[in-house]
């Protein structure tokens, strides 16, 4: 396993563009901390974001993992190109001839995906801890380390998403087209979502029940948007006259399982595809 990882990391690290993208990804992740310095002036009233409770434990776990997940596209490019480059350089063929099995090949890519997701999770964990301790109103141990399931959800979300990228890289073989395909897929899911929720099942929860099994939808369901949970926003809502939205912000086991299932499916399909193809 160590051997497979070191093979793959050498391939990524020695490539200048992958290295720059990876570094800028982690660099940008740390910029979440900059949100702390955002201040609005609304007339005489000054709104300082950091003081609105977004860095309060345990809410910060939810907020930071949600924001950090948006940046995953940077790594997605690295992952798609690490796969499609193997095709364009002809090195996939050469690796197999040199004695790597197809199974090892897919495994080495998957391990890299897991390492990337894990590194991101650790990074977000440490950053949130630092931000939290600087700005949170509550720093009791039991509160700080509650709601950590958001980190698990973040990790699973990244692994699932990167597995999809890997699969697309193998399927399409060209990085630009694979990323394009990802957008098309995203749009298709939105269209199906629209049709299902407004035309086919306008009432009840049937549309939602079906949609939760779609790959991208299931990934975005893992961490629900945190903004409407913020007390400022809630206050505004009540002021306007809404009676709270009753939204469920928790991480659900079913969504975790659905994304894990997709991860397994994507990896198996990648392997099957590789096995079936003549190079």
């Amino acid at each position, binding site marked *: 396993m160590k*051997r497979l990882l070191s093979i793959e990391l050498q391939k990524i690290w*020695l490539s*200048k563009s992958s290295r720059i993208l990876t570094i800028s990804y982690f660099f940008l992740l740390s910029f979440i901390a900059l949100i702390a310095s955002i201040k609005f002036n609304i007339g005489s009233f000054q709104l300082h974001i950091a003081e609105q409770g977004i860095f309060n434990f345990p809410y910060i776990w939810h907020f930071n993992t949600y924001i950090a997940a948006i940046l995953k596209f940077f790594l997605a490019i690295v992952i798609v190109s690490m796969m499609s480059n193997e095709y364009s350089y002809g090195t996939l063929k050469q690796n*197999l001839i*040199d*004695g790597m*099995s197809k199974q090892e090949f897919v495994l080495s890519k998957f391990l890299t995906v897991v390492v990337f997701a894990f590194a991101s999770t650790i990074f977000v964990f440490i950053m949130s801890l630092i931000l939290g301790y600087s700005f949170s109103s509550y720093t009791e141990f039991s509160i700080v380390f509650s709601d950590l399931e958001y980190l698990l959800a973040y990790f699973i979300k990244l692994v699932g998403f990167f597995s999809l990228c890997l699969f697309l890289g193998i399927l399409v073989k060209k990085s630009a087209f694979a990323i394009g395909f990802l957008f098309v897929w995203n749009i298709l899911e939105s269209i199906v979502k629209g049709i299902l929720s407004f035309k086919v099942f306008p009432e009840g929860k049937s549309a939602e029940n079906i949609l939760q099994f779609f790959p991208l939808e299931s990934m975005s369901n893992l961490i629900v948007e945190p903004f409407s949970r913020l007390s400022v926003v809630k206050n505004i809502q009540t002021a306007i006259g809404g009676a709270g939205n009753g939204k469920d912000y928790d991480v659900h086991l079913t969504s975790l399982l659905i994304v894990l299932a997709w991860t397994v499916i994507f990896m198996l399909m990648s392997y099957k595809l590789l096995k079936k193809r*003549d190079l």
Partner: protein
Amino acid sequence: METILSITNLNKIYNKYVHAVNNVSLEIHKGNVYGILGPNGSGKSTTLGIVLNVVNKTSGEYSWFGGAVETHEALKKVGAIIERPNFYPYMTAKQNLELVCKIKNIDYSKVQEKLALVGLVEREDSKFSTFSLGMKQRLAIASALLNDPEILILDEPTNGLDPQGIHQIRDIIRLIASQGTTILLASHLLDEVEKVCSHVLVLQKGKILYSGTVDGMTANEGYFELQSDDNETLKTVMSSHPAIEKVVFEEGKVLVYLKSPLEASALNRFLFEKNIFLNHLVKRKTSLEDQFLELTKNK
């Protein structure tokens, strides 16, 4: 003799109707240098691709080293170069070789030695993308030799190279062959195969036309080139000799093809007794090229 690779009744059909490899069987024994000859598109690369785990076979069997290990494990003891050199363009020569070491699960100790063998030591820290085709091909050979393989497989190693490049590659191949490494060389260049190979396999449209030693292929009885003042009489007289298969005129010379052994001196004496005196007498062996063209003709 130790068998390195055995292939039995291998078939490959692309897209349901292109029969690229048709019932090919062969055995590769340790220490020999094999050539696979065939025109472009005759199934050479496909056959090699199948045993190298990059092309899926349609039917038939192959086994490495007696079938004791899985193909990908066996390939760690094989060095192979297919068509064009495939490396990561952004890595240096040395980094590329180290990556191959990792894949083959061996340490880096051989990297320098093999770079020296192919004469790339002074360019070891240059990126692969800056290499000329000849250098890329030599790096590919260094990479294939990293694990001191039991067998070296070369698919068109001199394709696209300039004369110096071709010469360098051939020297390296000859050097490796002299060290007792088994070599399997696929090529459509006949003199290349004739110069370095001991055994030859001729493929056309996926079928084996000939399989055996190079000497066996060229060792028919050969032919004589004769010329005298009266070629007509010469021709009639020669046709009456029992060892002659056929006699033809070509470019002012009489070509005499044999069906059983006949020495030049015996032929000379025979004609002398018939009162024919020769201006020109040469005994020639059929070249591999002639044989190859003969084999692949009208098929």
